[in-house]
Structure formats: C-alpha cells, structure tokens
C-alpha cells in the first residue's frame, strides 16, 4: 500500500503498474473524497444505467399489468369510463416505472460498490487521512520488489507491505 499526495504521481504509478502486468482489478484507491481520474487510467465499467432501465421497465410493466388484472377482477363501471385504459392508468405506469428505476439504481449501487458483498476480512483497509490518496496493490509475492520499485519511483510516501494469508 502506498500513500500519494498528488494526483499526477498516482496516475503515473497506476499506469506503470498496469504496464508491469498488474490487473486493474487488483488496484484500489482509497480517499476521503472522490478522485477524478482521466479516462483510461482506472476505468471501472458499470452496468448501472442498464440495470436502472431494465428495472424501470419491469416494474412499470408489472404494475400496469397488475392494475389491468385488478380492474378486470373487480370490474365496476364508473361514470361511463372504460374498465381499463392505458390513458387512465398512465400515471401509475409512469410512477411505477420511476420507482423501479430508483430501487434498481440503489440496489445495484449497493452491489457494485461492494458495500453489500461479503468482504474478504483478510484484505487490509487503510485509514485514510485528509488529502491523501492511498493506493492498494494486490499482487503475488514474486512481483513485490517490482511493484515497490514502481511505487518508489513514482514518488509515493509511506509505502507499506501487508501480508495476506
């Protein structure tokens, strides 16, 4: 694990590590506020938009179908209106679609961020100080010297090594 205080140095370190063969999956940056990397340095592909849209359509569709079934199951004429109409139910379709997207987004966020997944208890989590960005590299033993070299070369402060069982 290494602490950085300046973003360009951190970015250089990451690029160098990737060039040395470390996978982006094994890299984690810890900070007290979000770090905006340029494109291509530490991209995390996200399926959140897709999940939100799918969740929205599914919920909206189910709700509309539910209203259709309910209206026909207990069909009482009122005011000369049709028992079920898409126009009349439009509001409910719309709102439940939105509700679906809200719940899917939140649910997927909990999953994608890793907050709700089972954590590997052995992996160390650094205490982050304000203004500091901590880079954690997960690699096998033989690579450690090379990693150390890159990190020192990039200007990291406080490089530490933690054993993982």
């Amino acid at each position: 694990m290494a602490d950085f205080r300046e973003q360009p140095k951190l970015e250089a370190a990451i690029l160098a590590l990737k060039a040395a063969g470390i996978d982006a999956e094994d890299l984690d940056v810890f900070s007290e506020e979000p770090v905006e990397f340029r494109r291509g340095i530490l991209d995390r592909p996200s399926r959140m938009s897709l999940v939100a849209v799918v969740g929205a359509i599914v919920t909206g569709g189910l709700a509309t179908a539910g209203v259709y079934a309910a209206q026909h199951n207990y069909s009482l004429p009122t005011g000369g209106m049709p028992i079920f109409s898409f126009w009349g139910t439009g509001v409910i379709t719309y709102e439940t679609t939105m509700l679906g997207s809200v719940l899917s987004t939140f649910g997927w966020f909990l999953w994608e961020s890793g907050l709700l997944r089972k954590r590997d208890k052995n992996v160390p989590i650094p205490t982050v100080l304000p203004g500091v960005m901590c880079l954690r590299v997960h690699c096998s033993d033989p690579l450690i010297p090379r990693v150390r070299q890159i990190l020192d070369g990039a200007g990291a402060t406080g490089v530490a090594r933690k054993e993982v069982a």
Partner: protein
Amino acid sequence: MEHRWGMSIDLDRCTGCEACVVACHAENNLPVSSPEQAEKGRTAHWIRVDRYYEGEFPDVRVKYRPVLCQQCDNAPCEPVCPTYATYHNTEGLNVQVYNRCVGTFYCANNCPYTVRFFNWFAPEWPEPLQLQHNPDVSIRPAGVMEKCTFCVQRIQRGKRDAATENRPLADGEIQPACVQSCPADAMAFGDLNDPESKVSKLAGSGRSTLLMGELGTKPKVFYLERAK
C-alpha cells in the same frame, strides 16, 4: 331485459310544497340538523326544492325545481371515488355503498348538481323521531357520504314481490317516496327500457329537458317544462 330507472318531474305542475322533501326524510332516515348546523350549511335534503325568483314586485314570478340525484349515466362522481363506494349498477342507478366510503369527499366536489351530503356527525333524532325509522334503510355513521338512491329499497321490494308472485313489474308499481307523496302529481318514476312506461313517454316528449345536460352527465331525471 334489465330495468333502467328514470324519473320525470313536471315543472309546470310543481307547486313548491316540498311534500317530496318531507317524504324523503321520513322514508330514508335522514338525520335532523340543528339551527346552528343548518347555518353552517350542514343540512341534508336528498331532494330539495330550488326557488328562482324572476321580475320585480308586483310582477314577481317564482319557479320551483326539485333537485335530487340525477343518477347520471356519465356520473362525474363515480370515477373519482378511490374505493368504489359509488359506482353504476346494471339498472342504471348510481349506487352509494356506505360500508365502502372512507370519506374523501371527492365525489361531492365533482357533482355539478351538489346533491351529495355528508354525515358530519353521528346522526341524531330528537325524541320520539327515532321511533319512526324505516327498517329497510340503514342508518349512516359519521364520516360517510350519502345521496338520493331512487329509494332503492322500494325498487328491491317491488322486484322481489313481482318475482315471488311470478309476474312482471307493472308500470308505476314502484314509486320512490317523493313520487308517491307529490300532491300535484308532478313526478313519475319508471323503467326507461320499457317504451310503454309513463316515464319513457314523458321523457321523449317535446317538453322534456335535462338539468345542465350540456355537461354530458346524461342525467336520468327529466324535467318537463313549456319551451319558451
């Protein structure tokens, strides 16, 4: 064929005596208001007689119009009730289901004839009026909406009697309390699906008008008056 109940009121015969109002009170267990509540606008008259004054003294003319629930076929009050406490039954009646009413007041706001009434308190009758209750009609609790039902209890009784005696319903056999009590014989009630009934003939006559018919509510109370 299903019945389709309708009513006609002859405005040229109506004298404004309000016997219909009293009869309705007696038949349908309407609650009695106090003067204070009346001042606040809380009386309930399922049928009321509106008076319109025209001209200056001494050439004043008064016109009377009994207004009751028009049992509209396109009732604006029905679609807005969230619990189906009011809906249209197969005989064309706009039924009010007291048990299902939660008191959202939406139906009353949407009625252009303002013929819906709310039970602001639990109903009370000064002694000994409570002995006069009609057992065929439920007492409404506080918090529910009510309105004219075309005396649905009399309709049910009439249909039941005809069925037990194995005969068809005769025209004029079923009369709501207001129709029955009118001394000027201004009101008629019957089956609009029966072309021979008195109501059908009057409704189709040249003197037949609808109250605010232009709103498209398709009311089933036909007001007969001389065309001006």
